[in-house]
């Protein structure tokens, strides 16, 4: 059938174990996902056994048509999926040798941050407090440390120069693109190992999108990024690896360039050439 990276032969799976694709494990693995199944009690499964290895300090893009399960996949990685009523998630996810599904979700999420589809700064907080929220809400009291972390996070999110003179004004007063960078800074301030991004640019204009893509190239120097996107050009621009999903299954996963130029699966080819989806 289709090549799935590093299929664990021990894990029960409906798909036959394929050969690992070339250069798949060139970088150490940050997150390894095996036979991940997820959905809602009483409903059809959204993920039907997904396995993939996400490389450390690289950008991995997940593409696929609406409803293919790509958002659910990343929401399992920080266990936010389970916060929804009736949601379940099983299989195996390993992060740094620890099983994500056995981790306390609250502590896990300090290692695995997330940026959402629509910018969602806390409406009652100013810019500074928004970025500091992950620290202050978790009991950090050292003001100097908080101020230092807020500044470094805003710099990494390429927002510092635009907001340094108005840190006390409301976060919701910024433009959409600035709000999204504020949310990125807020996630970075917790110093996660992995940053999940769920279509972070779908509500932004092309200029704001370009700025986010630029800063992605910076932040992947220090952390692993998994980005869900509808925009194939975006996946091609920002990611080293791309996974193509369809109907809750991983169809193809490999280096981005290969996936877009020489897709191994007919369905991937149809999707990336715009024949459907």
């Amino acid at each position, binding site marked *: 059938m289709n090549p799935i990276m590093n299929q664990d032969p021990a894990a029960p799976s409906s798909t036959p174990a394929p050969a690992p694709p070339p250069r798949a494990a060139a970088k150490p693995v940050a997150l390894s996902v095996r036979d991940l199944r997820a959905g809602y009690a009483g409903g059809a499964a959204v993920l039907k056994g997904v396995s993939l290895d996400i490389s450390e300090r690289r950008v991995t893009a997940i593409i696929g048509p609406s409803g293919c399960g790509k958002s659910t996949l990343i929401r399992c990685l920080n266990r*936010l999926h389970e916060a929804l009523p009736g949601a379940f998630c099983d299989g195996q996810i390993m992060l740094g040798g620890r099983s994500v599904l056995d981790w306390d979700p*609250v502590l896990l999420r*300090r290692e695995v*941050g997330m940026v*959402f589809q629509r910018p969602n700064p*806390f409406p*009652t907080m100013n810019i500074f407090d928004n970025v500091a929220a992950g620290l202050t*809400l978790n009991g950090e009291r050292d003001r100097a440390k908080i101020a230092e972390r807020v500044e470094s996070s805003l710099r990494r999110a390429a927002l510092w120069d635009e907001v340094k003179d108005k840190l006390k004004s*409301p976060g*919701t007063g910024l433009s959409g693109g600035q709000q999204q960078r504020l949310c990125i800074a807020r996630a970075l301030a917790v110093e996660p190992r992995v940053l999940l991004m769920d279509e972070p640019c779908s509500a932004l204009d092309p200029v704001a999108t370009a700025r986010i893509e630029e800063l992605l190239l910076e932040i992947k120097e220090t952390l692993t990024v998994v980005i869900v996107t509808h925009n194939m050009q975006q996946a091609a621009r920002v990611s080293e690896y791309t996974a193509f999903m369809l109907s809750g299954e991983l169809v193809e996963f490999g280096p981005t360039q290969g996936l877009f130029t020489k897709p191994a699966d007919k369905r991937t080819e149809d999707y990336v050439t715009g024949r459907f989806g």
Partner: protein
Amino acid sequence: MNSSYARRRRVNALMLALTALCAAVSASVLLGILGYIAWRGASSLSWAFLTRLPAPVGETGGGIANAIVGSAKVVGTAALLGIPVGVASGLYLAEYGRRGRFGFLVRYAADVMNGVPSIVIGLFAYALVVMPMKRFSALSGSVALALIMIPVVLRSTEDFVGQVPGTIREAALALGVPRWKAVAFVVLPTARRGILTASLLALSRAAGETAPLIFTSFGSPYWDQGLLNPIATLPQTLYNYAISPYEDWHRQAWAAALVLMLFVLAVNASARLWLRPPQGSSS
């Protein structure tokens, strides 16, 4: 121009005028009540009226100072009892009890309680507080008013907390913040304007209630003597004066009505002014 289009425009103009007329009638009722009370009450309103105790029967003059203090005390204590219970229950319903039998029961009970005649609430407070303590008291009046405030505050809190977008909750959870902290420090503050407004409106409604106070706080011609003794309140003083046979007391009832109306108006207006969203914020 097409004749059916011209006809539709005429009907539209007519209907628009009718709806505007109805709106004007509704607004003029409030203005009419206010104006009439001001006209009847203003002449008796004086500094002495606001600062003196009631005069003994048969003498003219005297004031309602004890009732103003008493109302503030009874309503204030009711707010201290009722608002925290209402906010906490509403928060529970919105965050943890959205579905499920218990949530349904609480919601249903609150709706029924909201419709219970206030005199029945007064009787309940009588049985709950006055009978065991064997005395009328300011406290029992506060309990009755708190019972009136709870369902209003509860349902509004539930609504306003429910309106906080799920993405705000998820943003907090995604930072590795425990659920209770996300609710207490992110969701609740986001809903605070609505909750404060609802609490102030519930408070102004309770301030005007008369029936639940008749056999709880009872009324008194003296200064406030603590939470465990009978106490004078504005609506009840108004009621006693209005049904009395004395001309002077009737005048004072109008003036007391004016004071009560102005208080309710002031609370309403400040609820709207203070709690207006700040400029330049989309919240």
